[in-house]
C-alpha cells in the first residue's frame, strides 16, 4: 500500500453529481443494479439524476422508458422480486397519481403478503418540490403521503454527502426505498443558486444509515426540525439570527421512514422550543407527526407552543410571488422562530 504524502485535494460535488456517483459505484459493484425511467438515458435525467450513466453502462442497464409509469414501475417490481436491484425513476412525485397502485399495493405490500418470503429490493426515485414556477402539478413534495403508507422506507436527502450515502444505503436495502430529491438541492445551473448544494463528498464507498437524523447545526435556544431544501433555508436563518443572540439548532430528518423520533426528542429536551419546517402540505403530514412525537411522549418538554411552517392546504401557485408566499421560506421561518423564542 502506498502512503500519499501529497496534500489531499478537497473534492466538492453538487448533490446531483453525488447521487450519480453513488449509482455508478453500486452499478460497478453489483451487476444486478440497473436504472430505468423517462429521459434517464441520453438526456441524463431532467434534473440531472443520471447524467453520464448511459455512456458508462449502456442502454441495457440505463433504460429509457415510454411515458407509462404503471407499466415500468411494475416492471421494476417484477425484476426486484426475481432478484435484481432496480432503481426506477418517477419523473415527478406529482405523477404518483397515475401509478400509485403499483407503488403502495404491490411494491410496498408484497413482502408482507408473502409472509416475508418475497423481498422487493427496489429504489423508487423521484424529483419533488417547487420554487421555479412549474405550476400545481409539478411542484409538490408529497413525501408525507409516501411516509403515511406502510411498507416502504422514505429518504429525503438535503446535502451532497447524504445524497450519496443514502443512495448507496437505499440500493443495498432489501426493502423498497422511496428516494425523494428536491430539485432545489441538486445544484443545477439553471435553478436558483444555493451554495449549500455544493459540498465535500467522501470518495469511494460511502453509506449513510437510513433512519438516522443529522444535527445540521448545534444550538441551545430553539430546535428547527426540517428536511430537504428547507434545511438549507433553516440554516440560512440560523446564521442570520446568531448575532441577535438566538442560537438555533437545526435537525435534518434525512429519513421519514423510519423516523428518528429520538433525535427530535433529544433536541427539544435541550431547547424546549420547536419549529417544524416542511415544504409538504400542512395538514395530516410530516409537520403534525413531528409535533405529535413530542406531545405523545412529554408535552411538558415544550416551554412554548410549537410552530409549523409548511405549505398551507392549497395547490402550489404558478405566479412567482404567490408561489413564494406559500413556500416555507426564510421570512416565515424567521417569524416562527421569533414566535417561540419571545420572552
Amino acid at each position: 500500500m502506498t502512503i500519499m504524502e501529497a496534500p489531499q485535494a478537497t473534492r466538492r460535488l453538487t448533490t446531483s453529481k453525488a447521487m450519480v456517483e453513488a449509482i455508478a459505484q453500486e452499478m460497478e459493484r453489483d451487476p444486478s443494479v440497473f436504472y430505468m425511467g423517462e429521459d434517464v438515458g441520453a438526456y441524463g435525467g431532467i434534473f440531472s439524476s443520471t447524467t453520464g450513466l448511459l455512456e458508462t453502462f449502456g442502454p441495457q442497464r440505463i433504460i429509457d422508458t415510454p411515458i407509462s409509469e404503471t407499466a415500468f414501475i411494475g416492471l421494476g417490481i417484477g425484476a426486484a422480486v426475481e432478484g435484481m436491484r432496480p432503481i426506477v425513476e418517477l419523473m415527478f412525485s406529482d405523477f404518483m397519481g397515475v401509478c400509485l397502485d403499483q407503488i403502495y399495493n404491490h411494491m410496498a405490500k408484497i413482502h408482507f403478503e408473502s409472509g416475508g418470503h418475497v423481498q422487493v429490493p427496489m429504489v423508487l426515485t423521484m424529483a419533488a418540490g417547487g420554487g421555479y414556477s412549474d405550476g400545481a402539478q409539478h411542484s409538490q413534495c408529497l413525501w408525507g403521503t409516501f411516509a403515511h403508507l406502510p411498507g416502504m422506507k422514505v429518504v429525503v436527502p438535503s446535502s451532497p454527502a447524504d445524497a450519496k450515502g443514502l443512495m448507496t444505503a437505499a440500493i443495498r436495502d432489501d426493502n423498497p426505498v422511496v428516494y425523494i430529491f428536491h430539485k432545489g438541492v441538486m445544484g443545477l445551473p439553471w435553478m436558483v443558486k444555493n451554495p449549500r448544494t455544493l459540498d465535500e463528498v467522501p470518495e469511494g464507498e460511502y453509506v449513510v444509515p437510513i433512519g438516522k437524523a443529522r444535527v445540521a447545526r448545534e444550538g441551545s435556544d430553539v430546535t428547527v426540525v426540517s428536511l430537504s431544501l428547507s434545511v438549507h433555508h433553516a440554516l440560512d436563518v440560523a446564521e442570520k439570527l446568531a448575532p441577535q443572540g438566538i442560537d438555533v439548532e437545526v435537525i435534518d430528518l434525512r429519513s421519514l421512514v423510519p423516523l428518528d423520533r429520538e433525535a427530535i426528542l433529544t433536541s427539544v429536551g435541550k431547547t424546549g422550543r420547536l419549529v417544524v419546517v416542511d415544504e409538504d402540505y400542512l395538514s395530516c403530514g410530516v409537520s403534525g407527526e413531528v409535533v405529535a412525537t413530542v406531545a405523545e411522549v412529554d408535552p411538558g418538554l415544550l416551554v412554548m407552543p410549537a410552530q409549523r411552517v409548511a405549505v398551507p392546504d392549497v395547490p402550489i401557485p404558478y405566479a412567482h410571488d404567490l408561489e413564494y408566499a406559500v413556500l416555507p421560506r426564510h421570512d416565515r421561518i424567521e417569524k416562527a422562530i421569533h414566535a417561540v423564542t419571545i420572552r
Partner: protein
Amino acid sequence: MSSLVLFPALSKETPDAEGVLATWFVSEGSTVAPDQLLAEVQVDKVAAEVPAPAAGVVHLLVDEEAVVRQGAPIARID
C-alpha cells in the same frame, strides 16, 4: 510551470460565443488533482464540465455567474 484553464468551445458554429461560468467546484487557492472537476460552464442551454489539466494550486480568474467568451482563460494552475 503553470497552466491556464480555458473556457471550452461548446458552440462550433460561433467560435466567439459567450457563456456563463455556472459553478466553481473548487475554491481559490485549493489543491487539485489531475482531471478533478473544476467548474461547470454553460453556453445557451448546453452545460459542460471543466476538469483540471494538471495537479497544483488553482487560482480562479473569473467569478461565478460571469459571462466569458469561449477560449478565454478561467483559471490558472500553479
